[in-house]
C-alpha cells in the first residue's frame, strides 16, 4: 500500500543523475509524477521525468498535495518554493561538478540554447556557492529529510545505493528491480574524481 504521508523528491543540479534516479524509483515500484512533456532525446534517452507545474510552484503550489505517495523531480533551486505544510523526503544527487558542467555544456550546445556566459571556473564557483547555501538552508527546514546519493556510486554499486534509498523511504521499493534500472552506458562524462 502506498505511503501517502510524505512526498519523495529527487533533486540536485541539472545533469547530476536525477533522471537516472527517477528511473530506478519507477522500476522499484514507486509511482512517478511526470507529464512527459519534455521528450526523451540524446541527452536523456530514457526520458526527463519532469513535471511542468514544478517550475511554477512559487505561483501555484496546488500540484503538491497530489504528489503525496509519489516521486517528483525538483531541481535544487525550486525546493525553496515548496510549501512547508507537507513532509518531503529528498534524494539529493551529488556528482563531480566538472562532469556536471561538461554534461550541461553538451546539452546547451545540442539544444542551441544559451546558458550563463561565463568561464567554467566561474560557473563552478557559482554552483559551489549555490549548493553551500542550499545545504545551510535545508537543515533548518523541518519539513525536509534528505539522503545524499553519489552519482558514481549509484552506477558502480546500484544495489547498495538502492538499499540505502529503500531504508530512507521506509522499504517501499522492489530493490532488485530498482537496481537493475541503472544503466552504466549512460555515464558519459566521467572524470577522475568522484
Amino acid at each position, binding site marked *: 500500500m502506498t505511503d501517502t504521508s510524505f512526498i519523495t523528491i529527487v533533486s540536485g543540479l*541539472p*545533469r547530476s543523475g536525477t533522471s537516472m534516479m527517477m528511473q530506478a524509483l519507477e522500476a522499484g515500484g514507486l509511482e512517478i509524477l511526470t507529464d512527459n512533456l*519534455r521528450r526523451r532525446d540524446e541527452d536523456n534517452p530514457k526520458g526527463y521525468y519532469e513535471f511542468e507545474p514544478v*517550475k*511554477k510552484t512559487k505561483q501555484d503550489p496546488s500540484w503538491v498535495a497530489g504528489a503525496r505517495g509519489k516521486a517528483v523531480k525538483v*531541481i535544487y*533551486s*525550486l525546493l525553496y518554493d515548496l510549501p512547508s505544510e507537507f513532509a518531503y523526503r529528498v534524494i539529493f544527487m551529488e556528482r563531480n561538478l566538472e562532469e556536471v558542467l561538461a554534461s*550541461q555544456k553538451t*546539452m*546547451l550546445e545540442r*539544444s542551441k*540554447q*544559451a*546558458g*550563463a*556566459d*561565463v568561464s567554467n571556473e*566561474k*560557473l563552478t*564557483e*557559482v*554552483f559551489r*556557492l*549555490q549548493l553551500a547555501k542550499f545545504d545551510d538552508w535545508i537543515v533548518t527546514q523541518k519539513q525536509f529529510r534528505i539522503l545524499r546519493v553519489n552519482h558514481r556510486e549509484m552506477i558502480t554499486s546500484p544495489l547498495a545505493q538502492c538499499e540505502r534509498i529503500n531504508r530512507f523511504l521506509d522499504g517501499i521499493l522492489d530493490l532488485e528491480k530498482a537496481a537493475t534500472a541503472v544503466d552504466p552506458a549512460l555515464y558519459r562524462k566521467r572524470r577522475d574524481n568522484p
Partner: protein
Amino acid sequence: MAKIKIDSKLYDRAKKAAQSAGYSSLEEFITSIIEKEVAQIESPADDDELAAKQLRGLGYID
C-alpha cells in the same frame, strides 16, 4: 600608451585567434578581453542570476 610583455608563443597564438575571431588587430582583441575581465572583477555578476541563466538555458526553470 603603456606596454606589457607576453610570452612570444602566446603572442603568436593570440594573433591567430584574433584573426579568426574577426578582430582588426591584436590590440583590439586583447583590449576586448581585458575590458571583459576587468568589468567582471570590478562588478561581479550576481551569482543567483548566473545560476538562473544557466538553469533557464537548460530548460529547468522558466
